[in-house]
């Protein structure tokens, strides 16, 4: 009843890989946007902003990704009757919620890693909070965020395999389907693993390219320190 694992099986796997890439790209981008907002709120002078973002971040970080995925997938149609997001949208929502919290912590860490003297110098020049953030703090913080951010995106790709439980035909789920057809989990999942590896390695290459381009070999502790002293 099984057929041998063959070239034709690469097609659904490649389609799964493409879906995984789309899923991670969309939720990664949204996660970075919301993560930036949350991370800035986390370090803002407004107590309410800090409070809200801290609660959100602690909650999400304290919940397994799989539970977030189930919650979004089953919960949204129940909480908002009439709203029935498709599997892809559910997965994007779940992964975005998850990513935003972790990105926010990276953003907060990077903002705090910019030397205190930078903030004081901006204050002393009369820059208000937003201008200080825009022209002094964030340009330096972004360079610090890139390496851990890339690391997190790679993690996101791997964690995205969990959305297989919703039946979305991403890479892991495609692997399952092909295994059921061929009865050959070893070959199938070796290919699946190789595809994940290629995606992740591609991201880390992009990160390295960015670091080379900007000349940042990020050493957050050394960056703000004046040279030549």
């Amino acid at each position: 009843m099984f057929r041998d694992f063959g070239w034709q099986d690469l097609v659904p796997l490649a389609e799964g890989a493409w879906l995984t890439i789309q899923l991670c790209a969309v939720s990664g981008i949204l996660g970075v946007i919301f993560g930036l907002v949350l991370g800035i709120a986390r370090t803002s002078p407004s107590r309410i902003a800090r409070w809200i973002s801290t609660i959100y971040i602690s909650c999400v970080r304290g919940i397994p990704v799989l539970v977030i995925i189930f919650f979004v997938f089953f919960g949204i149609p129940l909480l908002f009757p009439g709203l029935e997001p498709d599997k892809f949208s559910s997965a994007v929502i779940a992964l975005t919620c998850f990513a935003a919290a972790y990105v926010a912590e990276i953003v907060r860490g990077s903002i705090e890693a910019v030397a205190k003297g930078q903030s004081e110098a901006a204050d002393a020049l009369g820059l208000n909070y937003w201008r200080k953030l825009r022209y002094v703090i964030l340009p330096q913080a972004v360079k610090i965020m890139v390496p851990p951010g890339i690391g997190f995106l790679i993690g996101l790709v791997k964690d995205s395999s969990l959305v297989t439980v919703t039946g979305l035909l991403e890479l892991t789920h495609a692997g399952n389907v092909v295994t059921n057809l061929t009865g050959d989990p070893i070959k199938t999942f070796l290919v699946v693993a190789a595809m994940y590896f290629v995606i992740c390695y591609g991201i880390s290459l992009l990160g390295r390219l960015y670091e080379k381009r900007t000349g940042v070999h990020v050493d957050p502790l050394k960056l703000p320190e004046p040279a030549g002293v």
Partner: protein
Amino acid sequence: MIFVENLNKKFGPNHVLKGIDCHIREREVVCVIGPSGSGKSTFLRCMNGLETISSGSIVINKHRLDDSKTNINLVRQEAGMVFQHFNLFPHLKVIDNVMLAPLKVAKTSKEEARAKAEMLLAKVGLAEKMDAFPGNLSGGQQQRVAIARALAMDPKIMLFDEPTSALDPEIVGEVLAVMKDLAQEGMTMVVVTHEMGFAREVADRVIFMDQGRIVEEGTPEEIFSTPQHGRTQGFLSKVL
């Protein structure tokens, strides 16, 4: 120009400034000296709101710093500050460091801001370093850029927080020379420093602080040659 009355500053249980009274006139150059931990840097930082005031009052150019309605950013535009560790913005070129506040705070036009920055950099002797990044400059050059950056907002007062303490001894002079020029042009200056030679030569008045209080103040001649107070004498005997 600057009126400080019964200024108190506490960091938690730490009473750092204990009732400072001080009046600094326009065009006056005041050097604040004293041992580490005497509160002199904190005193300076209170003058542009980098530290909040626990009690008492500071009035700078008619702006009351202890009044929460005062727009602190307006005060800061009138009081330029130079830090011990320069705190230049490492991601911006030298010229952009100097132009940032005029462009973004004062909303000067780009041409005007650039012309002004070039003029100021020439004044501190760094016209040729305009397009360099701060990381490629020596400490003395960075500090001179920092002075130009502070001057770009046309401050009426300049506050210096140990501007030469992080510099190698042989390049201290180039920074002091710039400050001396500034003093001669009539800038109102408050300088926290360990450079007794500079204080003696340039200051109109020297304030000696210890343990959060102004112990003694007077002309450089009075402080350095005939200090009245035992603690001033003790401190000076160690540093001179």
